[in-house]
C-alpha cells in the first residue's frame, strides 16, 4: 500500500558523490530536497580507490569548490596524504591529489547532509518515477511512500542493475555489500530511455598486517601542502600516511595467463563495456604482453583501519587465483585478503539523450548525474551532481540553466563531451580532453568560476569579497611588474649572473625578467625592492600569469575563435527535418542531440562541414 508522503521540490536518487553534491546544491539554493540512498551507510562511499584528485580530476575538485560544492571541503577535512603532482611539467597540469580516510570522508559528508537545512536524507530504494505529460510528477519508495516532486535527479552509480562478478560467481549487488537497485531500469525503459550496460572493476583490499613494506618503496605526501578548497588555509600536516609502490612480475603474469579461461571477461559472461584506461590486471597482461612488470600502489584506506587498497590489481578472476597471483608480488608473499577484487556491471543511459543542463531532452524535470551518464570517477560524478542540482533548482525558479563551456571549466568539457559525442565506455576526464588547458588551471579555478558560484547563491558573500580582493591584488601586482623598469646596475647583474641569466645593459621591465625560464617571481624578490606584501596564492597566480603570458594569449585567441561558433545559437524548436540539403545522417544526429549552437553541432560526429554550412545558411535565412 502506498501513501502520500508530501510535496517536495527535488528528489535526488542516490547519495554517492553525485547525489551528495546534487542534494546540497538544491537545498542551498532553497529547494526542499530529498536525498535517498538504499543504505545510509553507503553515503559518499568510495567503493574503489581511496583517493580524490589527480591529473585533471584535481582540477574538477577545485572547480566544484569554486562553484560552491562540497567535495573539496570534505576531502580537506579527511585526507590522510596530500600531493601536488606534475610540478615539473608546467602550470596547466599541476594536479592536487589526496588519499582519503574513507570512513571519515563518508561520515563527514553524511553529517554535512544531515545538518543542511532544506535537505532530507532518507534510506529507501526508489522503485517508481511517475511522469505525466512528459513532466516528472512523483517518485515512490520500495515501502510505498509517494513523494510529489518538481524534479528528480538520478544518481544511481553502479547500483542500478548492479551485478558483481568474481570468477564464475555472479550475483546481484551494489558495491560493499549494499544491495543493487533493480526496479528503476524497467521504469526508465518504459519512459523510452535507452539503457546501456557498462562494467568496471576494483582490486582486492588486503590486511596491512600481512604485508612486508620493506620490500616496497615508500611514497610520502608533500611537506608543504595545499588544500583543495580555497576556503581553507593550511600548509602543514604532521601525520600523513604513506603509500607504497611495488610491482608485478613474470610469476604473476604466468598465473594470470594460466587462468584466463576462468575470467568472466574472457569467457564472455560479462557483456558490459569496460574502460580502456583502467583495465583489469588480466587485460594489462593480455594487451601488453611484452611488458615485464606493472606498477602497483598500496594505499591506506583510513586511519582507523588496517585495510589497504592495491591499485593496479583489479580483477574478476576467481578468489583462489587472485590470492595466488597477489602472493607472487614482493612484499605480499603472505597477503591476507579482506575483500576480493571484483568486476561490476551496471546500467547507465546514453548521455546524448540529455541537454547540456543534464536534464532529459524530452522528460521535463528528469535530471541525470554521475555514473548513470556513462562516466567514471568520483570527481566526474560530483561535478555532474553539482551541475544537475544547480540546474534543477534554476529550472524550478524559472531561470536559465548554467552551462559551462569548454573554455570555462573541465566540467564544461566533460558535459559537452558526453552530451554531444556520447560515450561507449566509462568516460574519464583527462587534461588532454581540454583544448584550452593552460586557461583551465587548478590555480585559477576561482578566477574562472567564483562569480558564477556567487551569483547562484552557493558562494557566500564573505568568501566572494575575499575573492574579489584577491583578484584585485593579482591584477594590481601584474600591472606593477609590467610598469617597473629594472635599470642595469651591478647588483642587478650580479643577481642575474648568479641565476645563470644573461646580464642587462639597458632598462628592462620586471615582467620581462620574470618571463625568463631561469627566473620566477619568487627569485626576483631579491631585486624587487618596492614589492608589496602579498599572499602566497596571489604571488603564485601573478607568477604564472606573467610567466606564461604569451602562451595564455595564444589560447585566448583560440577561445575567441571557438566562441564565435558557440555564439551562433540554434533555437531549440528547429526541426532539422525541415532543412533541405542536410544529409540524412546529419538530420538524425542533429534531431537527436539538438545542439544549442553551431559550435556544438560541429562537434557531433556524423555532421560534416557541408552540413554545418547548410545550417549556417538556413539560420541566416531565418534572420531575414
Amino acid at each position: 500500500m502506498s501513501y502520500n508522503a508530501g510535496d517536495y521540490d527535488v528528489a535526488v536518487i542516490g547519495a554517492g558523490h553525485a547525489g551528495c553534491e546534487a542534494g546540497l546544491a538544491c537545498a542551498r539554493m532553497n529547494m526542499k530536497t530529498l536525498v535517498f540512498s538504499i543504505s545510509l551507510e553507503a553515503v559518499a562511499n568510495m567503493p574503489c580507490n581511496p583517493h580524490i584528485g589527480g591529473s585533471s580530476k584535481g582540477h574538477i575538485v577545485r572547480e566544484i569548490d569554486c562553484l560552491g560544492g562540497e567535495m573539496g571541503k570534505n576531502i580537506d577535512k579527511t585526507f590522510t596524504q596530500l600531493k601536488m603532482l606534475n610540478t615539473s611539467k608546467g602550470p596547466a597540469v599541476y594536479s592536487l591529489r589526496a588519499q582519503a580516510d574513507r570512513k571519515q570522508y563518508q561520515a563527514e559528508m553524511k553529517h554535512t547532509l544531515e545538518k543542511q537545512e532544506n535537505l532530507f536524507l532518507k534510506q529507501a530504494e526508489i522503485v517508481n518515477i511517475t511522469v505525466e505529460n512528459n513532466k516528472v510528477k512523483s517518485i515512490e519508495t520500495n515501502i510505498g511512500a509517494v513523494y510529489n516532486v518538481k524534479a528528480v535527479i538520478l544518481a544511481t552509480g553502479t547500483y542500478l542493475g548492479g551485478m558483481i562478478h568474481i570468477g564464475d560467481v555472479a550475483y546481484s549487488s551494489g558495491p560493499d555489500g549494499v544491495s543493487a537497485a533493480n526496479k528503476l531500469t524497467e521504469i526508465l525503459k518504459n519512459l523510452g530511455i535507452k539503457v546501456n550496460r557498462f562494467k568496471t572493476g576494483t582490486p582486492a583490499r588486503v590486511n596491512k598486517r600481512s604485508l612486508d613494506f620493506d620490500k616496497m618503496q615508500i611514497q610520502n605526501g608533500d611537506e608543504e601542502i595545499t588544500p583543495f578548497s580555497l576556503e581553507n588555509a593550511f600548509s602543514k600536516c604532521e601525520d600523513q600516511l604513506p603509500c607504497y609502490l611495488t610491482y608485478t612480475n613474470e610469476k604473476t603474469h604466468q598465473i594470470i595467463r594460466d587462468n584466463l579461461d576462468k575470467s568472466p571477461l574472457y569467457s564472455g559472461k560479462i557483456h558490459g563495456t569496460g574502460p580502456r584506461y583502467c583495465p583489469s590486471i588480466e587485460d594489462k597482461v593480455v594487451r601488453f604482453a611484452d611488458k615485464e612488470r606493472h606498477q602497483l600502489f598500496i594505499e591506506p584506506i583510513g586511519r582507523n583501519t588496517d585495510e589497504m587498497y592495491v591499485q593496479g590489481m583489479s580483477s574478476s578472476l576467481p578468489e583462489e587465483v587472485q590470492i595466488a597471483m597477489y602472493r607472487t608480488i614482493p612484499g605480499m608473499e603472505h597477503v591476507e585478503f579482506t575483500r576480493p577484487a571484483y568486476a561490476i556491471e551496471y546500467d547507465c543511459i546514453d548521455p546524448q539523450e540529455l541537454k547540456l543542463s543534464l536534464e532529459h531532452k524530452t522528460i521535463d524535470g528528469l535530471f541525470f548525474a554521475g555514473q548513470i551518464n556513462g562516466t567514471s570517477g568520483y570527481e566526474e560524478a560530483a561535478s555532474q551532481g553539482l551541475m544537475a542540482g544547480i540546474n534543477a533548482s534554476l529550472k524550478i525558479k524559472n531561470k536559465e540553466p548554467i552551462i559551462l563551456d569548454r573554455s570555462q571549466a573541465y566540467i564544461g568539457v566533460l558535459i559537452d563531451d558526453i552530451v554531444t559525442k556520447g560515450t561507449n565506455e566509462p568516460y574519464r576526464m583527462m587534461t588532454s580532453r581540454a583544448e584550452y588547458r593552460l586557461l583551465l588551471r587548478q590555480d585559477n579555478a576561482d578566477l574562472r568560476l567564483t562569480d558564477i558560484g556567487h551569483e547562484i547563491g552557493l558562494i557566500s558573500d564573505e568568501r566572494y569579497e575575499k575573492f574579489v580582493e584577491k583578484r584585485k591584488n593579482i591584477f594590481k601586482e601584474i600591472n606593477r611588474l609590467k610598469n617597473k623598469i629594472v635599470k642595469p646596475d651591478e647588483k642587478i647583474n650580479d643577481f642575474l649572473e648568479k641565476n645563470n641569466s644573461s646580464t642587462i645593459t639597458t632598462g628592462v621591465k620586471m615582467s620581462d625578467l620574470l618571463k625568463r625560464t631561469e627566473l620566477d617571481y619568487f627569485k626576483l624578490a631579491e631585486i624587487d625592492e618596492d614589492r608589496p606584501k602579498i599572499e602566497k596564492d596571489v604571488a603564485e597566480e601573478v607568477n604564472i600569469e606573467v610567466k606564461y603570458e604569451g602562451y595564455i594569449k595564444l589560447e585566448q585567441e583560440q577561445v575567441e575563435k571557438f566562441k564565435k561558433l558557440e555564439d551562433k545559437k540554434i533555437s531549440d524548436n528547429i526541426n532539422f527535418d525541415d532543412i533541405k540539403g542536410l544529409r540524412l545522417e546529419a538530420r538524425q544526429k542533429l534531431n537527436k542531440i539538438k545542439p544549442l549552437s553551431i559550435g556544438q553541432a560541429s562537434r557531433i560526429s556524423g555532421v560534416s562541414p557541408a552540413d554545418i554550412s547548410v545550417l549556417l545558411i538556413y539560420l541566416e535565412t531565418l534572420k531575414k
Partner: protein
Amino acid sequence: MENTIVAISTAAGNGGIGIIRLSGNKSFEIINKIFIPKNKNNKIKGYSLKYGNIINPENNEIIDEVLVSYFVGPNSYTREDMCEINTHGGMIVERKILYLCLNNGAELAEPGEFTKRAFLNGRIDLAQAESIINLINSKSDKEAKESIKELEGDLSKKINEIEQKIIDVMVNIEVIVDYPEYDVEEITNKDALNKMNEVSKMLDNLEKSFDKGKLIRDGIKTVILGKPNAGKSSLLNAILNEDRAIVSDIKGTTRDSIEEFINIDGLSLKIIDTAGIRDTNNEIEKIGVEKSKKLANESDLIIAIFDLSRNFEDEDKEIMDIIKNKNAIIVLNKVDIKQNNKLLENELNKLCKPTIKISAMDKSGLDKLYDKIIEVFSLNELYNDNEILITNERHKNQIKKAKENINQAIISIKDNMPIDISSIHIKQALEDLGEITGKNVSEDIINEIFSKFCLGK
C-alpha cells in the same frame, strides 16, 4: 569587424592579365599604401578606374603598372569596400602584389570567401540561398568523392605521415601529464626536439613543393637574353618547332616582346623573347633594351645565349651582370660553326652557371637545355621522388602555419619551457594540418565548404 581579405582572382598561369582583389573596410587604406596613381587626385569614387604604379612602400620599387578599380560598399560584390588591381599578369608580379597587400594589413582570403561575404552581407537573396544550398550539396558530394580520392592520394598520405609524427610526440606528452604516477618513459626534451626538427623539415619540403608545383603548372617565366644575332630567335624557333612542343598562343601581352607558352614533356615554359641587349643611341631601341632588362629581372629563368663564333664583347659583359644573381642557364650557340672559344668560356665560367653548347640552327643540343632547366629548378625531385605537389594556396598556407607553430614549439623546447607549454604549439600545428585533412572542425573548415563554389566573377 570583419578583416580585409585579398586574393589573386584570376586563374593561375593562363592569363595575359591578372586581377588581385581586396575586400573589407581596410581595402582603400591598403591600396593607398601600395598604389601611386598617375593622376594625383586622391578622391575615391565608386565604379571608377585609376591608372598608376604598384610600389613597394618600403623601398619605393615599382612592381608593375596597373589599373585599379574602386567599389565603394555597399555597391560592390561583397557589399564591402573593394578594389581590383589589374596587373600585367605573370606569377611573380601577381604574387608580389598579393604579398604587398598581406604585408600591409590584408589577410589571405579563403577560397570562395568573397562569395560567402556577398551572401552573408545580403547580396544574395533568399531564393538564391536555396540554390546555394543545392550547390553546396552537389559540390560537397563531388567534394566528398574528391576528398576520398585525395585521402588516398599522396598529399594526404604525406600529411598523415607528418600528423602521425606529431601525434606520437603529443601522445607521449599527454600520457606523462595524465598519468604522472606511472613509470612511463618520459619524453625528453631532446627526443621532442629531434622529432620536431624532423617534422619542421618535412613541412618545409611540402611547402616548397608548392612553389615548384606552381612553376610546373603555371609555366616557368623564361627570358632569352643575348646580344643581337647571338641566336635568340633561332633558339626560340627551334624550341617552338619541336615536334614535342605544344605551343599555345597567348594574347593580351602589351609588351614589345614575343611571349609564347609551350609545354614540353610536362615542362611548361612561358618564353619571352626580348630585344637584343646592345648599347645604343637609338632612342626607340633604348626603350626596348631597358624593357629587356626589366623583364629579365622579373623572370623565373634566364636563358643567356652567347655566340661561340664571336669575340667576348662589352654586351656579353652586360648580360653577365644581369644574370649574375638570377636563375640562369648559359647557352653557347653556333657550335656548328666554332666548337670552342677559350676567352669567352673562361669569362663565363666565373659565373658558375650551368652551361651547355648547342646549335640553334641544327636544333642540336635542345635536350641538354631541357635537362638543365629541370636541374635548375630541382624539378627532378618532383618527378622522380613522386614528391607531393600542393596545388591549393590554402593548403600551402595551413602547412606554413603548421610549420611556424612547430618552429615555435622548437624554440620553447630549447628554452626549457615545461613540456606541456611547448605542447600548445605542437597541438596547434596539428589543428593547422587537421584543417587540410578535415579531421577537426573549426570555423575555418566550415568556411572551406563555402569556398568550394567559385560562383560568378
